[in-house]
């Protein structure tokens, strides 16, 4: 600190920083990207290990053997599902009751803000059925949840059947210390959300749901099961939850440990693990897996039924059976055993899962990158904003510095008024509010006047407002102070840079992936912006285009590349899904983008048209 309190040395340091500002920024940016890409390189990552003692050394013996019975149950369930034309509530209730569970149902309904065209639903009405296995000699304070969604068509029958078979087997065991809730939910995430809100007696997303009668205390962990075929080749673990929340890493470790024990192929992001890290392919594979995780986490939606549990501090993961064309197949008994093992270990828990990491990225199931390793990548990007801000600060303060030993000088005539900065800020944010509110509220009007469906209306309104925002505010300061001054845009840029730094910093703390992706695209353009820059470059690096790029990259990574027009359709559906996720489950990505990131970007856009 002595370095900084000595005015001469301080002057030298600031001089250095301003002189070398651009090179430092470029180096930081490149270093950030390289660091991030290096995270997938195996020697730099840590091997996963079980942190929780209660789950570690006490290996359990799996005895589940009624896989065949589960498959015949699946057929029965399928028949009843067809007959009922939806969830066979009565049959499920009977089936659970006959297995000695306490069975309850919950009916719910929710009118979506606009029709969901992906899943073809608008007015959703459904029933959740759940049975509670009461643990012997336990005081109903702790519970585990196993859920299987009852999906339309003939998907997921095996999951429900396996759930029932497990219930039957579990019911005859004496060792349970926690109640086990077997939940079959209708309408996938909507059902889960309704059930969770009912269970915790909260109402954050305006569901109309019947109250829950049976409860079992605080839920410690949850597993969601998705299984659509009698045999599978591999099991995929899905971790990404709402708002980019992840379950404790020990849950992933647990899954991995049992897959190893039972010889089941396991994947994450649908990608198998490779051992050849030293080859280029091996590295690319790991990098792709990690990038997929980053993209999935960044979009902030729940990638399985488990994702909604995370809000309630319930560690949860989805296990998805995949049947591809490999020779090596796993039967239902083995999957049952795997789940039995996992549930028994979770049953052994004395405390909630808390020992291992909550913030991590997984380049493969056996390697992880903890928050301490990936945060510097973001830090390197964020520091650019601060460096630029410092540079601007010094430049703005330069005349004042000259008058350091003079007592006081009169207010500089060239200094811009608060109003010149405040007006663009306010206007940008008002545009943001409009972007947040109007699409959903104006859909009826849009449908009346244009030949589009409600969903299209919402998405197109959003895009229209977004584009209108580009045209709106960029000449306000001329009305106020005539010609835009050099000083004026610099002050605005300084404000915007600091604002963006705070925004990205906060976002990255909660959802690293989102923060990082936004930083990668926003930082270079915002750092280098002057009124002389081309508007096209600015637009190409705007938040909306970031989403578009992400869509293309994602499709590329899951090995399903799309053409430009398909990509555009996907982009539209991503926007509508984002708005729906916000309305239905309380995802925060859409409000974050609309209310903060987009207005912040508009402030930079303003600079472009300063003169």
């Amino acid at each position: 600190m002595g370095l900084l309190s000595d005015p001469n040395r301080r002057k030298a340091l600031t001089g250095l920083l301003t002189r070398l500002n651009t090179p430092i920024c470029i180096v930081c940016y490149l270093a950030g990207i390289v660091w991030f890409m290096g995270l997938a390189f195996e020697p730099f990552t840590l091997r996963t290990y079980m942190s929780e003692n209660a789950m570690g050394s006490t290996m359990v013996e799996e005895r589940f053997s009624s896989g065949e019975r589960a498959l015949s149950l699946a057929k029965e369930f399928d028949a009843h599902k067809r007959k009922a034309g939806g969830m066979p509530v009565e049959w499920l209730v009977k089936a659970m009751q006959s297995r000695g569970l306490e069975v309850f149902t919950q009916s719910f309904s929710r009118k979506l803000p606009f029709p969901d065209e992906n899943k073809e639903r608008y007015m959703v009405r459904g029933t959740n059925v759940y049975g509670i296995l009461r643990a012997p000699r336990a005081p109903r304070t702790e519970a585990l949840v196993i859920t299987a969604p009852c999906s339309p068509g003939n998907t997921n029958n095996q999951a429900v059947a396996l759930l029932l078979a497990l219930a039957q087997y579990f019911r005859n065991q004496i060792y349970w210390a926690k109640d086990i809730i077997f939940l079959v939910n209708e309408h996938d995430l909507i059902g889960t959300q309704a059930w969770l809100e009912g269970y915790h007696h909260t109402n954050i997303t305006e569901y109309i749901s019947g109250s829950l009668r049976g409860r079992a205390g605080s839920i410690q962990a949850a597993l969601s099961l998705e299984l659509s075929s009698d045999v599978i080749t591999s099991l995929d673990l899905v971790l990404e939850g709402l708002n980019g929340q992840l379950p404790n890493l020990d849950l992933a470790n647990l899954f991995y440990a049992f897959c190893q024990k039972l010889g089941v192929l396991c994947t994450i992001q649908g990608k198998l693990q490779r051992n050849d890290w030293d080859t280029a392919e091996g590295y690319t594979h790991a990098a792709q897996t990690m990038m997929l995780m980053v993209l999935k986490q960044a979009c902030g939606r729940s990638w399985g039924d488990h994702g909604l549990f995370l809000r309630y501090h319930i560690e949860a993961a989805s296990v998805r059976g995949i049947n591809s064309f490999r020779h090596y197949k796993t039967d239902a008994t083995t999957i049952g055993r795997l789940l039995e093992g996992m549930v028994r270990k979770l049953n052994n828990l004395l405390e909630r899962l808390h020992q291992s990491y909550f913030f991590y990225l997984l380049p493969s199931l056996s390697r992880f990158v903890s928050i301490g390793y990936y945060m510097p990548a973001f830090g390197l990007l964020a520091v650019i904003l601060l460096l630029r801000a410092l540079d601007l600060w010094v430049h703005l303060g330069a005349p004042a510095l000259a008058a350091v030993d003079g007592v006081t000088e009169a207010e500089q005539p060239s200094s811009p008024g608060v109003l010149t900065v405040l007006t663009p800020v306010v206007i940008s944010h008002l545009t943001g509010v409009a972007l947040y509110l109007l699409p959903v509220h104006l859909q009826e009007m849009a449908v009346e006047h244009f030949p589009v469906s409600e969903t299209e209306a919402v998405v197109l309104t959003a895009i229209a407002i977004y584009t209108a925002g580009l045209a709106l505010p960029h000449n306000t300061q001329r009305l106020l102070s005539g010609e835009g001054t050099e000083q004026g845009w610099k002050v605005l840029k300084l404000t915007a840079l600091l604002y963006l730094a705070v925004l990205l910093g906060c976002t990255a703390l909660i959802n690293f992936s989102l923060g990082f992706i936004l930083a990668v695209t926003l930082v270079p353009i915002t750092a280098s912006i002057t009124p002389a820059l081309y508007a096209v470059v600015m637009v190409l690096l705007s938040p909306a285009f970031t989403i578009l790029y992400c869509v293309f990259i994602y499709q590329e990574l899951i090995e399903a590349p799309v053409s430009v027009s398909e990509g555009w359709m996907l982009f539209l559906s991503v926007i509508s899904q984002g708005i729906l996720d916000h309305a239905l489950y309380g995802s925060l990505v859409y409000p974050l983008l609309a209310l903060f990131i987009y207005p912040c970007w508009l402030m930079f856009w303003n600079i472009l048209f300063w003169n």
Partner: protein
Amino acid sequence: MAAHRCGLSLVCILIFSSLAHPSSCDTLEKANDNTAEKRSISEVNTDGSVAGEALNERQWQSTDAEVDRSDSTTHSEALTPAAARDEFQEELVIRPLHSGDIYASFQFRTLWDTDFLQEGQKVSHYRLFPKSLGQVLSKFSVRELHISFTQGFWRTMQWGQPFIPSPPGAELWVWFHDTVSDVDGNWKELTNVLSGIFCASLNFIDLTNTVQPSASFKPLGLGNATDHRFLRYATLPREIVCTENLTPWKKLLPCGSKAGLAVLMKSEKLFHSSFHSQAVHIRPICQDEQCSSKAWELRQTLNVVFDLHTSGQGKKEWSLFKMFSRTLTEACPLASSSKVYVDITDNPEGELFELSPATPLLGQAVVLGDRRTYSVYDLSRAETFGQLRSFNLLLRWKGDSGDMLRPLLHAERYVAGFGLQTGEIHTVIYNNHPYRAFPVLLMDSVPWYLQLYIHTLTVTSKSRDNKPSYIHYQPAKDRHRPHLLEMLIQLPPHSMTEVTVQFERALLKWTEYTPDPNHGFYVGSSVVSALVPSMVAMRTNFTQDQPLFSSFVPVKEESSYFVRVYTEPLLVNLPTPDFSMPYNVICLTCTVVAVGYGSFYNLLTRTFQVDEPSPPLSKRLANLIRRMRGVPLLT
């Protein structure tokens, strides 16, 4: 056939009236002549199909007669000298439950005509009454003591009401004699002593979890003490009950686990069950009808529910051997009565289950507002054991297990909300009576680290505000005493009443966390006490088997019965620091950041000025002279 029945009932009445005795101090066996008459009439229905000879042998056993003191003393006089004046009874009630599970309830009762609390009299000669407890009673001037250890939660919806309810974990409530000056001191010592006697963590009871309920816990024995200053109530919801608590409990029995019903108590079976509860209740009762002197009653109870699926291997068949892995071979020689009761109320024609060996004895009692019929096996009779000299009761289910029950009063509780800042406790009380409203007393004791916002207390029934007619609220003091909330709420008929109160989770000092802070913190069960209108009074259409004159006005003592319902305890997570290595890292980083931030802030806000070095002494002197001379100063 009808003539047969009439004849039989006459016989029964005759037999009964010769045995019947008016007095009764036992709640379980509360029956009077009037009901006895009704019984014998209804009995005809029950056993109409049995062969005539067997019918003649079958007799209604008067449960009262056994309880009666004069009768039993004549019994025991042969065994013991009259000076001891104590007696011991043991019984086992087996109730097959609708769910296919089976409920076994042991009760051991020791009665002693002495007064521990009498001034100047030191009781030193103990026979049947355990000395360890007697000494505790006299040392701490205990008027009444109730302690229970429970592992598991009583599932009212599946099992109905238990005979003696108890909350999960340990519960202790004590009325002290009104001569005690330092109640808190006595209480503290008493809990420590009991902790030693029962090998339990009762020593964790301190002022932070002790309350003095004003209305919910009234003395059950003699004396009208209502000054709740002498009452202490505490629960330890976390207490885990195991063999180490069972062994000292068994030692209090006169026969130990050597003979009598107690041989059945093998821990490997008792703890292979759905529910296990053991309790000790001590209270003073009347020695005789005039109540001229006091007697002490020690009642040891053990309730256990065996699960059909886990211990029955799915076969709907129960036997003493299957339940306890023992059979009975003898009664406790010290016991004046030793009996096994099997509840056959729902099984009048034997269509639900089959009971073997069959018994000629039947008993009837009004238990929890419902008239129940029991098969009685008297272990003091040799013929009970048959030729094999061992008694193994076999119960084979024929029917299907039923749906969930709808008990008249039922309560549950849960924590609503998410996040670690605030939350809401919901207590839901169900009144399933079709047409009667009745009041209940709700008692809630919440630890101080959940800071209740009492202004958010709402009571709603049928979506309307339901104003409690009595509220007793004692706010918590941080680290000193818990919240106590008692309310008298009127439950409308056939309704669900919801009591909600919001709370904020306190941030504890880091030494106050338990060794497993991420497990969460327990909040004890809330207690709902009520006088519930009884099922007997509910049946308005019972004219078919009963004389009309007996059925117009419901009998007073049967019209309602006292029930205590415990809700489940709560497990609440408090904001917990990460006590492992990252916690230290956070502390360190925060310190570094704080220091760094402080310096930076300092730098950013401070303006620097070049300080003029002070002039040398010669210059200052010169200036002084110049000033005196009025010449311009040197710079």
